[in-house]
């Protein structure tokens, strides 16, 4: 394996109007790593992933994927690097005009030109991996519960066996048992297939299970970044407060009490 980081963000800034959301994010992710990004609601975790995917354009800084500068990639170059990725969106983002299996097989059919029959088989296989049976394959997304939609989104993300997986809150809205199934699935995909994974989660149990490294985003910057084992003695008061889930500490929520 080479030493070029799989994903590298350098000084990424993103502004919406006058609001600075990312204020110089630096993050390096090696091949085969599973990194979890934690941080308060609205600190720009989803925005960070979207900048890497080029859904949002970073205002400043650079983003490299497998050594290649993709900060301003467009057209076929962009399609080519996007084929490396699978993404689970926070809200699922399933196509509601298509059936469940067509959703899962979308990247295979549209992106890679696989025949429909073959793509359907793969889709049903992936659905089974996230604990969904073939019975729902022909339903439409609106007919599923929120947690089921999330799992379909997960199946869609892993369908084309991408080398990089982004999961935006993969276990939110799932019952604890199903959450554990998904955690195991993510952990084993990373371990067995050598995939690089970046997940966002508020669920510290899940974070500990699926990650080898944790990075904490606060006020638009990565304020702590280290191995998952060392999170309990990070020596960082912000991280401590976050993993304790306490309202007391340096992080002040903007609520009136």
């Amino acid at each position, binding site marked *: 394996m080479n030493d070029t980081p799989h994903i590298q963000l350098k000084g990424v800034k993103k502004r919406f109007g006058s609001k600075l959301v990312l204020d110089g994010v630096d993050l390096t992710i090696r091949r085969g790593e599973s990194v979890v990004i934690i941080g308060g609601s609205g600190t720009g975790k989803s925005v960070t992933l979207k900048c890497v995917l080029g859904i949002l354009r970073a205002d400043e800084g650079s983003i490299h994927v497998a050594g290649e500068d993709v900060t301003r990639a467009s057209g076929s170059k962009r399609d080519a690097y*996007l084929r490396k990725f699978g993404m689970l969106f926070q809200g699922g*983002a399933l196509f509601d005009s298509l059936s469940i299996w067509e959703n899962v097989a*979308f990247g295979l059919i*549209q992106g890679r030109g696989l025949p429909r029959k073959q793509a359907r088989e793969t889709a049903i296989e992936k659905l089974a991996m996230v604990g969904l049976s073939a019975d729902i394959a022909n339903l439409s997304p609106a007919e599923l519960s929120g947690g089921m939609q999330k799992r379909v989104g997960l199946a869609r993300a892993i369908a084309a066996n991408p080398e990089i997986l982004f999961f935006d809150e993969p276990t939110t809205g799932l019952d604890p048992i199903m959450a554990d199934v998904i955690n195991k699935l993510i952990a084993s995909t990373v371990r067995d297939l050598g995939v690089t994974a970046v997940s966002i989660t508020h669920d510290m149990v899940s974070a500990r299970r699926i990650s080898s490294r944790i990075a904490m985003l606060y006020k638009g910057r990565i304020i702590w970044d280290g191995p998952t084992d060392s999170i309990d003695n990070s020596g960082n008061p912000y991280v401590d407060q976050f993993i304790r889930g306490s309202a007391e500490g340096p992080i002040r929520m903007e609520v009136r009490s």
Partner: protein
Amino acid sequence: MSANENILSSNWNIFAAIGRVVLAFLAGTGRLAVFAGIAISHIVRPPIYWQLVLHQMLRIGYFSLPVVGLTAFFTGAVLCLQIYIGGNRYGAEAFVPQIVVLGITRELGPVIAGLMMAGRVSAAIAAEIGTMRVTEQIDALTTLATNPFKYLVVPRIVAAVVTLPILVAVADSIGVFGGYIVGTRSLGFNGAVYINNTMNFVTAGDVRSGLIKASVFGFIIALMGCYSGFHSKGGAQGVGAATTQAVVSASILILAANYLMTSFFFSE
């Protein structure tokens, strides 16, 4: 502060407000032009998803037939009635069939069908694409290496550009038929004479100009629907605003484009 200065500063406020509106308008026009440019660049570059085009043609065209048919019928009927009443003053009732067919094929057929489609199709496109935008489905398309212009915009524009002339051809026939019904049933025209006068008078050029207009209207309708949907923000409210914007802007652009095309086609 003196009263004079007050007036001055409030004047400046007005200028600033006007300036802001003008700037916003120019920026909006620029964004629309860029959007249209990207869409056209994808139309001329393969691949085109023909299956999606057919699907959209069915949605845009087939299901609009009843609406367009009914509006065209009543438009032809009322046109016939008004021309008869107006023509009566100069003893020109005999020209009713000719004027009806001219009015329908050149102007009213395409414009009425275009406006009805702006209400029906632009709104539906804007609502669908707007919902896809706010629920991140368009972002999901991109990450699945599928260009949203190719997958969403191009099929709708191509379908509308092809389908609108067909709808207008139907509208023309039904409109003339509406005039014929009123003319023969309540105004006392002889059926054979009415049809004869219509057919002998109308030229292929009249019909063709109307069908070309229809294609342009189809482009405007699908473009405004897609553009508004793509740029919708926020949740349900944003999608609602996008839908309204699509219908209003498509209607205005249709009427403006119609005037331009009429002055272009029929200037001697």
